[in-house]
């Protein structure tokens, strides 16, 4: 499964990056490929291109603020959670997102 994700939090200093790291680790452990874009205090990093968005099976937003340029993901199954949920239990977030994909794709 090809997953793309975006993480963001209000100050963009810490949670954004912790959530990104947690999702990367969890998705890889579960045998999926993932690219995580961070929208934090440094700006957008590891940006997901329109092509990558188009090729993805599933999109996860782990964000507490509005995700910028979300138009890229308009046609994709999108699973949204709070950033802190990804920090607390990223594996569960990925598993729930996969379930969401199965019922909505």
């Amino acid at each position, binding site marked *: 499964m090809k997953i793309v994700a975006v993480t963001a939090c209000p100050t963009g200093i810490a949670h954004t990056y912790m959530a990104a*790291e947690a999702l990367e680790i969890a998705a890889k452990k579960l045998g999926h490929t993932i690219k995580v874009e961070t929208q934090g205090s*440094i700006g957008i990093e590891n940006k997901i291109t329109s092509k990558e968005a188009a090729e993805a099976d599933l999109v996860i937003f782990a964000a507490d603020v509005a995700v910028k340029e979300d138009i890229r993901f308009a046609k994709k199954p999108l699973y949204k959670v709070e950033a802190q949920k990804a920090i607390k239990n990223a594996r569960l977030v990925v598993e729930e997102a996969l379930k969401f994909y199965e019922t909505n794709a």
Partner: protein
Amino acid sequence: MLINENLILLDLNAETKQDAIEALASLGYRDGRIDSLETYVENVLQREQTYTTGVGNGVAIPHAKSNSVKEAMIVFGKPTKAIEWGSLDDKPVDMVFLLGVPEDGAENLHLKIISQLSRKLMSEEFICTIRNATCKSEVMKALGDI
């Protein structure tokens, strides 16, 4: 440098989250990183209310982007007794990383290092190294590898 030995406290005596934040912020103040202790602490506590910075595994990362911060900093404190922090996993905290970033003109390099520290905190190995550190130079070394 974001951190130096003046910004490390291996015997943090604090009963509450607020005590801990105040004590560590004072180190930043004494090191010239912040010019108003009161404003900075208030900003950190406000951030804390948005949602907890107790990210689990005994780690807390209270932080603020604040006008009172003159130079970005990481202050590390190891409480002598674990502190109730309202963490994501409900466990008390035995490692506190207090982060401060200036409101304007925060250098990208500093923000980058702080973002890398945040990522590192998801690694159990990294947490273990710091948790087991018995002297400031060990903490410096672990953080220096970021």
